[in-house]
């Protein structure tokens, strides 16, 4: 228990320090950091509740990764170097394995680190909102909401890879915005940031194979639109670097990992040695069997309110059912409001927001088409788009623009563009 307390204290202190460093010149920073710490504490409490029956018997994916990480820690301790480690499913287990090898096997600690990463995601989401010139109060609200969403607490508190996936997505978009927005960056820093984005895309691909296409495709949309709008050569260089790097990953990492890809259930009747074509055929068969409109509906809206009590993990838990139902209602509200935000992004012709939208759409489409038609699965996979979606939850600017246009003050929109 003492070790757990030390971990928690350390991560809470670290969260506060990172928060101060990131938002030092902002006036409402204290409240924001208090909410971030609260989000961290809630996750810690949830972890203790989750592991109340022992860390070796709780969870599904989280437990698998924990068990695999233990094996990796054993490998590391036996002297096998990191690059020769044998691991299954995802390199996230290697990360946890390294942690176990250094600090000792402790699933609590791994979960605490995941919680911290989730808070970091909230920070960087806020930083993106601030860079997009959203009002400080609104930017902090977006970050706070993200950190306190109940399902997000569940997905990011266990030893699952979700926390890292969400973090990588937000970091890629944060860094891309930084490269384009910060004109004072030196060339070396620009190169380093671009290289950083490429590495993060690669890491995301290792975590979820299709992330390569959603992320690089969306970045392509962003950078090309930005180039068309501004003719800035940096955007073109950045864009072509991403494309070249993505092609390279496509023919190396993706090809190698396609066989082990398990988001789609593998057909064990094929004895596990099916070739790549068979795997691709199986993916296309799954896609072709789906009703596109129904699948999109399911991905964006499931679990429907009446389905919530049937989610296996929360069945018979009235409090959890009420929380999930409330969250679903808020999510529907968020979806409706974000329509105005999306339209506003188009009116402004904001390449960055349109790029993020391209990511949301492509990620949504892929998951709608390949995920199992199970409410809980959609619920978990959808979590990756919640953070970027929150950037669109604004109806006010849109109505102001429309009002301006109809009342004859169209300059408000046009003049914002160069």
């Amino acid at each position, binding site marked *: 228990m003492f070790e757990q307390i030390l971990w928690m204290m350390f991560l809470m202190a670290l969260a506060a320090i990172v928060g101060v460093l990131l938002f030092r010149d902002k006036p409402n920073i204290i409240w924001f950091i208090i909410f971030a710490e609260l989000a961290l504490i809630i996750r810690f409490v949830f972890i203790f509740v989750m592991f109340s029956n022992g860390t070796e018997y709780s969870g599904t994916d989280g437990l698998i990764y924990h068990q695999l990480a233990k094996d990796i820690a054993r490998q590391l301790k036996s002297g096998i170097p990191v690059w020769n480690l044998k691991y299954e499913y995802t390199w996230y287990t290697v990360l946890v394995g390294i942690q176990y090898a250094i600090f000792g096997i402790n699933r609590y600690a791994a979960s605490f680190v995941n919680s911290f990463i989730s808070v970091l995601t909230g920070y960087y989401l806020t930083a993106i909102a601030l860079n997009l010139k959203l009002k400080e109060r609104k930017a902090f609200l977006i970050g706070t909401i993200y950190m306190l969403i109940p399902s997000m607490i569940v997905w990011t508190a266990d030893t699952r890879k979700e926390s890292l996936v969400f973090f990588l997505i937000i970091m890629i978009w944060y860094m891309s915005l930084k490269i384009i927005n910060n004109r004072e960056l030196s060339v070396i820093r620009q190169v380093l940031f671009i290289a950083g984005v490429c590495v993060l895309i690669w890491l995301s691909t290792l975590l979820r194979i299709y992330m390569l296409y959603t992320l690089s495709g969306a970045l392509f949309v962003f950078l090309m639109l930005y180039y068309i709008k501004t003719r800035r050569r940096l955007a073109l260089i950045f864009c072509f670097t991403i494309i070249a790097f993505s092609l390279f990953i496509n023919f190396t990492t993706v090809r190698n990992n396609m066989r082990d890809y398990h988001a789609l259930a593998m057909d064990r009747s094929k004895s596990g040695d099916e070739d790549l074509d068979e795997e691709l055929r199986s993916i296309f068969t799954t896609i072709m069997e789906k009703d596109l409109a129904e699948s999109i509906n399911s991905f964006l809206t499931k679990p429907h309110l009446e389905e919530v009590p049937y989610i296996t993990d929360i069945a018979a838990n009235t409090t959890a059912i009420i929380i999930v139902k409330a969250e679903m209602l808020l999510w529907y509200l968020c979806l409706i409001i974000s329509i105005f935000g999306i339209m506003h992004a188009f009116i402004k012709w904001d390449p960055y927001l349109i790029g993020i939208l391209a990511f949301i759409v492509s990620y949504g489409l892929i998951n709608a088409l390949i995920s199992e038609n199970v409410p809980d699965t959609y619920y978990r996979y959808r979590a990756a788009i919640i953070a970027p979606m929150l950037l669109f939850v604004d109806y006010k600017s849109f109505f102001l623009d429309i009002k301006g246009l109809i009342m004859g003050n169209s300059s408000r929109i046009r003049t914002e563009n*160069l």
Partner: protein
Amino acid sequence: MKNKSIKILAVIAVLVIIVFSITVFGFAQTQYGYQISDYEVEVNILDNGDLAVSERVKYSFLGNSNNAVILIDKQDGEEIEIKKVYTLIKDKLIECEQLSAGQWDANVFNGTYSVLQENNLVRLKVYSNFKKQQGTVIVHYIVKNAVKRYRDIALLDRTFILEDWNGYASNIDIEIKLPRYTDAANIRPYLHGVLVGQKDVTNGRTIKYSIPNTVPGEYVEVRVVFPEDLIKNAQLTAPRNYMRMVLEEEKEYSESDKSHLLKARENAAKEAGKRAWNEKMTQRRKLFLSIVSIFTSVASLLIIRRAYKELHINQETESFELKDIPKLTPQEACLLLSGKIGARGVLAGLFSLASKGFVEPVFITEENISGISFQISENQNTEHLEESERYLLQLIREYSDEHGKFEIIRNIAGFSDTEEKEIIKEKYLNFVGKIQSDYSEKNKLTSNQLYYRNLGLILGVVLFIAGCIISVAYSVLSAYLMLPVGFFVFWYSLNIQRKTPYSIKRIKALMELRKLICKTDKKDKTLPDWLNDTNRLIGYSIAIRAENKLHLIEKTLLGKDIKIIKKTLKKSLAALYDSLSAILDN
């Protein structure tokens, strides 16, 4: 404050109502609980009173879950031991592995199962490669101490479909095999929990039950009474006779009120009716919304066509040709061609002022310092200038040095302070506003055109929103059509001013000018007289993005080398662009 709160509350209330109505009416009614299309059970009674059970369950619907659940009845004193679990994939049996610590290297996502011991049942969860919410699971298990042995009889009492199961099952076949043959007259089978079902002692050893289907609320409980000596290795449950008790219990059951079973059937029928009605309504709704989506999309496009026609009614008779271009300021030309002002508009505006004698451009071509500076000429009458030009001149005067010199790179790029940037941003936006206002004044929309523009804007928004909501909430594929159409209608209406005859004629003339400048054949090139003014030429060439083609004009500009001018212009434009971008990003 109060009013604002009321407004916010009203908006939230409307949104909540929309959300609720979508959740109530929009989503297709889902089928809950499992549906089993075939349920075959083989029970072998062992001579020690244990049961070797084999269940083959074919699910036609997994209840929106990614696993199949089998509930195994467990009574007091019984012990359940799961022996083997299989799933059937493409007619091949795949043996499942149990999820437990130490076995996690197994392919957890396919062909695994978990066993949860609950009070009076065992919950078997099977994970496999189930597709379309369908699958077949075969489970072999042993039930220890299942048969009760009394002095006079042995009694098997077992429930196969549990009352709380809450699913639908069809074609239930249960076959029970005694350890040995006996006289069929000594075997008494009973069936509880369903109103319809058959039981049959097929020979002296086998008892068969056949139940066509069950609905939530019904259950399948089988009781078999047979000679106790068939399980001679089983321990006596109680040293007493039990047959009389069984007969009493059965009499009690047969005379009992079975209205709850009738009610279960009734509810199931109601549920099925409701589902069928919902299904029908969903289909109708989809059809209706598909038609509405297509109709509104087409109607919107027709409205845009009408708006297009409206733009060409009462066209201005006045023509606009190359020679008329000077009537336009270069910054307006920039706005017409690209829809924005930007660095080009500013620089072109400066050269326009130069052509009118208000400033004098100087190309600085020293090795280290190259750029353009503008020297202000004093005592000029600004009355005939347009509003935007006057404003630009005023800005130059404001930011020029004590000698009346304004250097673009030094003056604009030199702002690093946030407050200064904020001021410049405001001034730039004012400048743009004045150009747009000048342009709007000259390019006034008629009331009809204005009507169509506003109608298009509103329609575009409504269509886009409807496209988002209907396509997602009601799963209507054709509703996605409303998204591009809505966007197009909105975009067209937003830019309608650039599609008026006024704009089109001017854009055409400007394009013609660009073509002329870019023409490589110098012999055929006859430039209009007004282009003899070098500053004017540079101004318009910047506005129409032809400043890099100036070498195609056979002429010496300002006594300088064209290459140097081009290079300087390029550099100044880039610097101005970067500075303005930074200022606007501020």
